[in-house]
């Protein structure tokens, strides 16, 4: 029997091929093997290319290293690029895209916010077995990793010093994947037949442990993490729901934050960025995976998603009809956090 990686990759290739052959799409976005071990990177196949060389389909892969959230790449086909505006008369390209649970929820979030056109998309759902945190693997290795091979549930690693080792995939998964509530995409146009992880608890257990910290301990943790930040904006750029044409951090007319390496500026950047994700963030960890410095953003994206869930009973979903909670309100919303001087003085 073929192993999971090869089977899933093949199924995606077949589906992409079918979409091209049926002339349903102009572009297919998936993953291809990267130039480094433990990396798969976004791949873009165009109908033109495939017509010329159908074997290009075979470059598509699906393994445990497909950490990018591909929904990020959809924005360009709609309004996000200045050039696009001038060519608005042209119909939107029809895009096929392989989506994990998180990618798929991002697509729906973007569709609700009218940043993508659901009609022009062909979502190819890939039930997700979880993606690995390369840092976790590197920590377990004494030397640089020069090659890797994934077979079913283990990853064989070859080190620079010639040694090789086998790593249990499950132990190397990203926190967001271990805790993921929606590994299986829904409301897609087709779905690959491959097993998904069992849904996780959404990080409840980790958050409860975090809640035990005092204010000062929490501050210390936040400070330690943000001290690593170099303000390269990889988190923002990797995030599918960070789609503002001009980020608040780049406003010069009204300068919200300094552009230097001041710690409080880095903090305000991240607080605001994550706050802007309230009710929109799908906790895909694209920001964390993109960060060259390994700043723990997961704790905070997870936290704000939980808060929104608890306050407004909402999680970004696969339903195009629901309203993002911060775009609406209810008379019945909690007033608990409001300071009431009369009560305070009782």
């Amino acid at each position, binding site marked *: 029997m073929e192993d999971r990686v090869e089977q899933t990759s093949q199924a995606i290739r077949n589906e992409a091929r079918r979409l091209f052959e049926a002339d349903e799409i102009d572009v297919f976005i998936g993953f291809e093997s990267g130039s480094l071990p433990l990396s798969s990177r976004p791949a873009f196949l165009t109908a033109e290319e495939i017509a010329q060389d159908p074997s290009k389909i075979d470059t598509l892969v699906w393994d445990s290293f497909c950490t990018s959230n591909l929904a990020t790449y959809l924005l360009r086909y709609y309004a996000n690029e200045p050039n696009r505006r001038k060519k608005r008369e042209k119909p939107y390209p029809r895009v096929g895209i392989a989506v994990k649970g998180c990618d798929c929820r991002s697509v729906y979030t973007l569709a609700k916010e009218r940043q993508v056109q659901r009609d022009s998309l062909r979502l190819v759902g890939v039930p997700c077995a979880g993606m690995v945190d390369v840092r976790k693997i590197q920590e377990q290795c004494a030397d640089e990793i020069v090659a890797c091979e994934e077979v079913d549930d283990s990853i064989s690693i070859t080190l620079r010093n010639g040694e090789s080792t086998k790593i249990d995939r499950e132990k190397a998964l990203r926190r967001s994947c271990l805790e993921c509530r929606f590994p299986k995409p829904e409301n897609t146009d087709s779905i690959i037949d491959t097993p998904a992880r069992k849904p996780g608890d959404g990080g409840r257990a980790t958050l409860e442990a975090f809640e035990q910290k005092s204010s000062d301990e929490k501050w210390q943790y936040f400070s330690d993490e943000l001290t690593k930040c170099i303000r390269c904006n990889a988190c923002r750029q990797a995030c599918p729901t960070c789609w503002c044409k001009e980020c608040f951090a780049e406003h010069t007319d009204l300068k919200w934050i300094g552009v230097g390496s001041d710690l409080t500026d880095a903090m305000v950047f991240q607080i605001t960025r994550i706050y802007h994700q309230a009710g929109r963030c799908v906790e895909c960890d694209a920001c964390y995976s993109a960060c*060259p410095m390994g700043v723990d953003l997961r704790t905070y994206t997870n936290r704000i998603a939980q808060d929104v869930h608890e306050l407004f009973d909402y999680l970004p979903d696969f339903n195009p009809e629901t309203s993002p909670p911060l775009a609406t309100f209810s008379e019945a919303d909690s007033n608990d956090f409001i300071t009431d001087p009369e009560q305070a003085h009782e």
Partner: protein
Amino acid sequence: MSDTVGCTIEKKLLPTLLLNESKHSRVFIPKQSDGVTEYAVFGKGDTPDLEAGQSRLSPKSFFFPQTETLYAFDYDTIEPSASEEAAEAPVVLFAVRPCDSASFELLDQVFGPENHGYHDPYYEKKRDNTIVVTLACNKPGSTCFCTSVGGDPAGTRGADVLAFDLEDRLYLEGLTTKGKEFLARNGEVLKEAAETDREVANTLASSARESMPAVEYDRATVKKNLDDQFDNPIWEKITNTCIGCGACTYLCPTCHCFDICDEERHYKGRRIRTWDSCQYAQFTKHASGHNPRPTKTERLRQRFMHKFSYTVESVDEVYCVGCGRCVRYCPVNLDIREVLREFSST
């Protein structure tokens, strides 16, 4: 000590040497924490981690910090910042890798007066004040490609002292007046090297050299191709995966673009310069709204053109030292080596 034969120091005596130096200089050594290598201040009891490999952030920040105050001002006065004016203690940068020290020479050409006669006192003072002890690489990393861009794992560019790791001891050669003085004043812990030490060092260097994968890169060919194919749609294809963050530029030892801005509160303020990146949309945007490089494609092209064409034309240098940081930390594995390959065919 003659010029051709250097000296050696037993590794166990290194702390003594560094402690001596730290009496009059600020000494920085490589240290590893959480899997990240950085240059940290040497303190009593510290040992430099010579196995730590390349630092995550390039040591360019010693001369060109991410944020630097040009001058402070208040209602009546303008005062140059301490870093420019005060005679700071000299700095010893210990165990800088050859690619990074080579980058210092490239930065010198930007910030030094050879560049159109303008001094940059901030950069120059720090540079003049620093002794660079370069440690040759016995085990180049898998993403290193210095030999392809004219560097060497035992390269001497930008170094005052070149050191080789000979297991139980270091073999040291003074390259500049500063470097020779450095060795002379530490004579008591150094021994004159035997002819065999140098031979061992040479053997290590050549085996390191041979272990490095060659990226097909021919300076003239790539420059010509880049110039000829400025408008080639290939750039759009290369840019497909790029998310437009600035991680590559912030980690790059030769990238030196900066922004100047003011921070002010209560009639007091400072003018600072901070790293900036050609990858950001705002970088070249005119106040009128016109942007000469409106999309990621032009911005990414600029990065490659600058390094492999523009500087070759203007100062006859390639502004890439082959450190591989951008390869390793690009969130989407956009590999500079592959781009060079793309433009290498004749």
